[in-house]
């Protein structure tokens, strides 16, 4: 309870969704009591930089833009770091929190779940599966960075090899970044081409070729069957693919996607499917309990999860207004995603997957050697999405205006 006897707004998590909700709420309401509970240290960092850091030679510590204590002081909030929320009791409006050796009950006036997501791990056989890195948090990145930085110089001077599982957005960004950072990169994905869910085939082909110029080797249409240690071998691990290819690697990074973390919400009886279900006001199935960010499944997005930066910013602003006393329905604008592959920059405004329509390439870009532009047009002839690559990404603002969200 705060001094005036009113329980605080309690925010669970300390990622972009949590901190942005706190920041936006504080802008609108200078006096409301806000508590933020996080199991990590709460430092604020720009998560998209995790897949750009090697190329820019930035250490994990350099990625922290604002330490947690400074965030809490600036926003005038109470920070409970290294604290786990064990359970939610929506009837008594309390959460059970655990820190160190003690467990206690904390009351909330409104509860905001920003618990994020967990990396999906694909099963594989072998005795080295524990060595597979996933990166969805700064602490994960510390582990990857330490592992790669500790690799010994190879006797013949050849670069260390990273086996990268996943050719989606984060996988492709890491492929570019690690190749730029001096590693040999081998990418495995069951899909026939990179970014199949976001790009038309011709754009995927450009990305595939562009990354290949950096030395990235592709094993598409394949999965990793087994991952074993190679004691005494030239590389630390040996991966056997579904097509029987054997890849020798010194580190393994998996980036095959995210699954919303709904554990806490589901245990409290909140309605969950692929994420915590929220209505247009970001409210869950229980009054005064809200969710946003990577853990949320948005009715405002046709029941999709949207693990990207722009949806989080939009959701946090709408939620902050609602929490400050002005109920505000979330309406997502067109939200182009920048794929940070410097060898071939890409901007994608992905159409709703439920939309019927067709991709066509802008004829003016067909003969270009670098870059291209594609529009997604629905059955009524309206432009509902686009992809711009290379130099064509300069048309981002112009094309956004011509596209209906």
């Amino acid at each position, binding site marked *: 309870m705060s001094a005036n006897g009113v329980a605080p707004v309690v925010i669970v998590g300390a990622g*972009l969704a949590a901190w*942005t909700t706190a920041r936006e709420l504080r802008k609108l309401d200078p006096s409301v009591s806000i508590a933020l509970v996080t199991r990590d240290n709460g430092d*604020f960092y*720009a*998560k*998209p*930089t995790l897949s*750009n850091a090697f190329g820019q030679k930035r250490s994990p510590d350099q990625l922290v*833009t*604002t330490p947690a204590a400074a965030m809490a002081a600036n926003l005038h909030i109470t920070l409970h770091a290294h604290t786990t929320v064990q359970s939610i009791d929506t009837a008594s409006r309390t959460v059970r929190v655990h820190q160190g050796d003690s467990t206690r009950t904390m009351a909330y006036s409104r509860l905001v779940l920003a618990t994020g997501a967990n990396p999906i791990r694909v099963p594989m056989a072998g005795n080295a599966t524990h060595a597979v890195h996933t990166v969805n948090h700064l602490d994960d990145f510390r582990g990857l960075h330490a592992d790669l930085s500790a690799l010994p110089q190879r006797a013949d001077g050849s670069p260390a090899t990273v086996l990268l599982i996943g050719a989606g957005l984060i996988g492709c960004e890491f492929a570019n970044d690690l190749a730029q950072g001096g590693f040999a990169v081998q990418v495995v994905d069951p899909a026939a081409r990179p970014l199949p869910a976001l790009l038309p085939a011709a754009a995927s082909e450009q990305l595939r070729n562009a990354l290949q110029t950096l030395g990235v080797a592709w094993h598409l249409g394949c999965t990793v069957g087994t991952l074993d240690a190679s004691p005494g071998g030239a590389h630390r691990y040996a991966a056997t693919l579904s097509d029987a290819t054997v890849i020798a690697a010194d580190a393994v990074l998996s980036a095959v996607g995210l699954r919303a973390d709904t554990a806490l919400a589901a245990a409290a009886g909140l309605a969950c499917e692929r994420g915590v279900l929220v209505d247009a006001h970001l409210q869950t199935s229980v009054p005064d309990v809200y969710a946003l960010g990577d853990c949320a499944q948005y009715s405002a997005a046709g029941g999709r999860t949207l693990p990207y*930066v*722009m949806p989080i*910013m*939009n959701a946090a602003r709408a939620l902050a207004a609602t929490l400050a006393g002005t109920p505000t329905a979330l309406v997502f604008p067109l*939200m182009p995603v*920048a794929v940070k592959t410097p060898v071939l920059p890409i901007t994608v405004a992905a159409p709703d997957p439920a939309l019927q329509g067709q991709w066509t390439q802008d004829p003016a870009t067909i003969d270009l050697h670098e870059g291209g532009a594609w529009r997604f047009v629905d059955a009524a002839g309206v432009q509902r999405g686009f992809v711009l690559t290379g130099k064509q*990404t*300069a*048309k*981002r*603002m112009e094309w956004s205006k011509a596209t209906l969200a």
Partner: protein
Amino acid sequence: MKTYMCIVCGFVYDETLGRPEDGIAPGTLWTNVPDDWACPDCGVAKADFEAVQV
């Protein structure tokens, strides 16, 4: 010439380079970037940028 970073996503605005694709000429000082300009990567407002040494 200085650089400014989006505190949310890490996008960097470099005054030397400007942002020609958004109509902001090379050499445009941060103070002269329009207030309604938004981060191209994450959409946050100009106010959510801070000066950084890169």
